[in-house]
């Protein structure tokens, strides 16, 4: 007999509370678009900010609200971009892979001007006499970019930042971290770059750094009528619409080895680091 009472009493309590919750659920209803969670699942989830949003959840919201396209996510592989686009039923646009390039080859043995003492971080060192390197535009070598890179693609070697192209995903966190604005996003396909960013005259550069680009224009002559190289005042840059190939380095025989192949540079093949 009392087991019947038990069932009834628990049943009553359950229904009463159920009704109360039902009413409250109606009063406090808030709607959520479930497509956002789905897109978020398909994103890599590195929260690197490369897409310009504050992390993958934010980016997913942006993509669903058509404020951004899936291809904007630098970390996504080609298949991910296609998968997301199909899920949302929009076209998967093509996007060229960009990598970071530190346009400086002046490590400590090469350009050290005086001893530095203080916070070992580029953003702080630049406030003290523009850092301790001879060149006002050179890499300070305290690794703010290496620290800012969520994928560990930048290695500090003898006070110089060196980008490992294969690890770099193109999220551009390092570009903002460098106080000397040395880091530029270049197409991954380009192999040969000028590792100098100083607009000074050749002689002034030569005094402070042995591997600076002294605008001798040998590389421009060596590339014949193909305009591989761009001349910008006293500095030569690779023309990234029509990037030079690796063999231009031997052809030009750059006197200060400012013109380098990035994979070789990453391996430290250009002396100076010995």
């Amino acid at each position, binding site marked *: 007999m009392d087991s019947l009472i038990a069932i009834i009493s628990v049943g009553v309590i359950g229904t009463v509370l159920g009704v109360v919750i039902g009413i409250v659920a109606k009063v406090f209803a808030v709607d959520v678009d479930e497509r956002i969670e789905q897109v978020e699942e398909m994103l890599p989830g590195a929260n690197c900010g490369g897409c310009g949003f504050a992390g993958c959840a934010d980016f997913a919201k942006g993509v669903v609200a058509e404020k951004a396209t899936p291809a904007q996510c630098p970390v996504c592989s080609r298949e991910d971009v296609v998968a997301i686009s199909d899920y949302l039923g929009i076209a998967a646009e093509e996007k060229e892979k960009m990598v970071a390039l530190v346009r400086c080859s002046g490590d400590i043995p090469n350009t050290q*001007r*005086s001893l530095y*003492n*203080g*916070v070992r*971080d580029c*953003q*702080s060192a630049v*406030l*003290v*006499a*523009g*850092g*301790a390197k001879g060149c*006002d535009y050179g890499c300070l070598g305290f690794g703010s970019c290496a620290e800012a890179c969520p994928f560990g693609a930048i290695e500090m070697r003898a006070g110089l930042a060196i980008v490992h192209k294969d690890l770099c995903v193109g999220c551009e966190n390092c570009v*903002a971290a460098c106080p000397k604005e040395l880091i530029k996003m270049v197409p991954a396909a380009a192999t040969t770059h000028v590792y100098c960013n100083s607009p000074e005259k050749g002689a*002034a550069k030569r005094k402070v750094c042995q591997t600076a680009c002294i605008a001798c224009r040998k590389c421009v002559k060596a590339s014949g009528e193909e305009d591989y190289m761009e001349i910008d005042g006293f500095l030569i840059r690779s023309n990234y619409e029509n990037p030079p190939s690796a063999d231009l380095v031997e052809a030009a025989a750059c006197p200060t080895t400012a013109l380098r192949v990035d994979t070789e540079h990453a391996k430290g093949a250009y002396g100076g680091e010995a």
Partner: protein
Amino acid sequence: MSDKPRKFKGGVHPNDSKALSAHKPIQEAPLLDSYKVIMHQNIGAPPELLVKKGDEVKKGTLLAKAGGFVSVPLHSPTSGTIKMIDKVPGPTGISVPCIEIAADGEDEWDSPFEPITDWKTTDPVELRQRVWDAGVVGMGGAAFPSHVKLSPPDDKKIDMLILNGAECEPYLTADHRLMLENAKEVVIGGSILARILGLESCVIGVENNKPDAVEMLKKAAANHSVHVQDLPVNYPQGAEKQLIYAITGREVPVGALPMDIGCVVQNVASAAAVYEAVVNGRPSIDRITTVTGKPLVDPGNWKFRIGTPISKALELAGGITEQPAKLLLGGPMMGIAQSSLDVTTMKNTSGILLIAQDEVSQYTSEPCIRCGRCVDCCPMQILPATISQAVENHRFDWAEQLNVMACIECGSCSYSCPSHRPLNQQFKRAKVEIRAGLRKKG
């Protein structure tokens, strides 16, 4: 005028080691064969160049006119020909444009304006224009154009002019010698500034570790309505906000200017420069600089023209007996470390200082033990230790909440920190970061 000076909270007492050069009279620096005058010598817009290579100039000729209201003209320190317009390493380490003048030896004056004989009756607006034309800047170290401070907007009522003779930086004795040897110039300069602001009197604040200067100023100020106030020694009393509080008891609100509470502060050297401009009709082309430091053979005070390379200044002081650890422009507390001898003096170079090797203990900073010494000594009453922790973890929004923007970078906290932490550098970075709007969350 309050009778008793107030003591502001915080502050430190480094040994002033002014004895090295305090008793040395001001010497006139001999004429050099060339001067490299740095173009941008003031806070605000850089001046616009008027001369080109090969032009003949006399002493005082206009080299560049002011590039806007908050900017000052630049005058030639000597007569000669413009050799080159190129770059020279600036005090902040970055090479800056400069005008190189090859001296012709005559050193012949050709001032762009005439002396004003009776400044007591001249219209204040004309006097202020003269201060602007002479290129007078704040010589305490900030190099803020003086005429801008002298033209407050109408809604700001100014009722107090203070001449800053505190010179609380250790080692420096330039202002001390200036007040001692040409006290009259400072007092009359002060009266001219008071007249420009429409005031009857002004106060000269001098720390009482310079008793002879205080006496000399009191004697010179006898028949002028200038009150000399001696202040207890307390670094950084020379900072604008602290000096105003010490003399008037008023606190400049955070983020506001002294003129918002009716005060204008001018350095005593700027007052002397105003005297030079109005009474002698000469532009501001030189200043008194202390060349001092233990490694120096014969430290002293010299009147250098703008554009004198540091190497020449050190030669005048007899060179060095031992290789110094640091070469500074300014005092040890707020001075800027240099790494090249070709930097040339400017209108705000109050000192050229060599720090010996043994005076510099190699700073390996240790973790903060929260001893609170920096909290006690901060004159702006903010919390250096907590802000330092915030900056170390890239939490600049938290640093801003802790009022890091109120920091005047006087260095008292780093000075008193037993762990040798580079607090000053971290705050400078935080302010740059916040000003650049990069609220990077850690």
